[in-house]
């Protein structure tokens, strides 16, 4: 089902079946170009498939934005070991709620994407790692998988192509860290989700010591369209080196929150005002989290920007996972920084000391600061502590906690100043009411 009205500004590639009657059924899928790309891929060599994905300029939709074709090319296809495709459906980045819709509304598109990826890297088994909270999607994907087996779109000799492939779901049980690909691998092996040292990279030594391709749900959902219509057509939708469309999850202080599929490179201000209908109650924009809680925030005057990976990187932020959170002028940035840090302190797996200790101390400091007991010297200290976490941990969780904090301290010093000298939070009563 859909949870918000679509916007006329959307360009629908991965969401094109959303809203069709029985959009999740195999019949609907087959009636709307479903599995055409798989048959086309069956007649292509793995090199040709990977080349097409490279041409598409598709970049990982989980957050890091790594070029997908390049990632596929790293898997040693000729290795005598079995190879695996693992779908990262552990969607947990605060602000992000898109993979859920892709699985709910179009599960067969994901299955087809997995099959094509499997063909490209010579894998014959795929696992969809779904966060435990999304139980209904585990049942839903299991039904879609069973339907695909029953009709010969999974299993042995799929549709007479000679290609064998099995797909399984695997449930997580509540851990943000397991969205990090090496921690996910430990988790799927039945262990605590602790990140692994890289190299070796998962492409070479991944799940069960075997070469493993890990991709986000949205990334794999883009594959059927890329193979069917050509990589060039997909690339043309976005900006150079940033192909295609992105699902943007608008949330926070915006009139029409929702998930919208927009071309990569769409202007952020247009996203807020034209797609999202602006801010409620005529409030002014204060800041935007461009792509999930780990991204450095943009101030209102930095928001006239193209939402692609490279432009945001130039602006010292990140496109991230597509979770775009809008903050109005009444938002206390100290409180916001505190809530982000509380999250990372809770989710730190404890493996690396800078992250485990850093997030816990920063949470305490921000908590104290927000309650009015902060000192002026705490302001630079919060920034310095955060910088000491950057790049000093096995996985990016420490960075994810540090980056938004550094940006908030640097861009909103006046919010910190306002809490000094025992002053209560000036924004205490300014929260937007809940919306019916």
């Amino acid at each position, binding site marked *: 089902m859909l949870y918000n009205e679509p916007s006329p500004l959307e360009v629908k590639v991965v969401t094109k079946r959303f809203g069709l009657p029985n959009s999740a059924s195999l019949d609907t899928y087959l009636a709307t170009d479903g599995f055409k790309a798989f048959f086309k891929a069956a007649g292509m060599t793995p090199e040709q498939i990977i080349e097409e994905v490279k041409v598409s300029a598709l970049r990982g939709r989980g957050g890091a934005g790594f070029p997908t074709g390049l990632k596929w090319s790293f898997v040693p296809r000729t290795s005598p070991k079995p190879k695996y495709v693992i779908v990262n459906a552990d969607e947990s980045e605060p602000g*992000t*709620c898109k993979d859920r819709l892709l699985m709910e509304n179009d599960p067969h598109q994901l299955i087809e994407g997995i099959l094509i990826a499997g063909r490209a890297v010579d894998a014959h088994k795929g696992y969809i790692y779904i966060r435990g909270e999304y139980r209904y999607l585990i049942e839903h994907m299991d039904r879609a998988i069973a339907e695909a087996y029953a009709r010969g779109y999974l299993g042995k000799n799929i549709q007479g192509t000679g290609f064998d492939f099995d797909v399984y779901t695997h449930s997580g049980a509540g851990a943000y860290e397991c969205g990090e690909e090496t921690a996910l691998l430990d988790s799927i092996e039945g262990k605590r989700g602790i990140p692994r040292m890289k190299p070796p990279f998962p492409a070479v030594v991944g799940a069960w010591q075997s070469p493993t391709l890990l991709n986000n749900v949205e990334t794999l959902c883009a594959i059927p369209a890329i193979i069917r219509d050509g990589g060039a057509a997909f690339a043309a939708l976005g900006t150079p080196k940033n192909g295609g469309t992105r699902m943007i999850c608008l949330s926070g202080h915006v009139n029409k929150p929702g998930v919208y599929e927009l071309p990569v490179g769409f202007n952020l201000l247009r996203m807020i005002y034209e797609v999202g209908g602006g801010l409620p109650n005529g409030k002014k924009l204060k800041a935007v989290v461009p792509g999930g809680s780990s991204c450095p925030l943009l101030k209102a005057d930095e928001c006239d920007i193209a939402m692609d990976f490279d432009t945001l990187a130039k602006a010292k932020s990140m496109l991230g996972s597509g979770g775009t959170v809008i903050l109005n002028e009444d938002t206390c940035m100290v409180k916001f920084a505190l809530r982000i840090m509380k999250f990372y302190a809770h989710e730190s797996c404890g493996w690396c000391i800078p992250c485990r200790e850093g997030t816990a101390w920063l949470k305490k400091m921000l908590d104290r600061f927000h309650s009015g007991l902060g000192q002026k010297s705490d302001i630079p200290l919060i920034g310095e502590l955060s910088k000491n976490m950057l790049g000093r941990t096995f996985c990016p969780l420490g960075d994810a906690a540090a980056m938004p904090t550094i940006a908030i301290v640097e861009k909103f010093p006046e919010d910190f100043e306002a809490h000094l000298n025992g002053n209560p939070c000036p924004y205490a009563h300014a929260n937007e009411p809940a919306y019916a």
Partner: protein
Amino acid sequence: MTFSPELEARFAKLLESYPPGRTRSAVVPMLLYAQDEVGHISTELIEEVARRCKVAPLQVDEVVGYYSMLHRKPLGQHHVQVCTNISCLLRGGEELYEHASQALGVGNKEVTADGQFSLEEVECIGACSWAPAIQVNYDFHHFVTPEKLDRLIAELRKAQ
């Protein structure tokens, strides 16, 4: 331990889905599915899962402490999980959590005396664009207001 035939079928399918000799991979989902049926993770359940997955009980025990959805104590029949992460925070998630706490008369991770409800302040549940959001057991509720929450709690009470 004995489980329902449905759960046994699920376990059998789960153990078959991993490569040969990799039954340890079933530990986390098996714990979660079992918890849904028996209520919480007891020492007995840890030993049972260890036996089925062919690992030492300690290897199961250490996993229980890591994943936030695995609970060593029984939860309420209706586990109310209120998200207060950033997107929900901006839409009144904290006020909603406070309201839930008062309405149920329990604090974070506590269970009501009659065992019907438990409350938990949770991290992002992936419903950011429909905030504030809560989950009751596995059911999502979007755009929740204090009034909507009151109605929901009353309905769940009546359904007993």
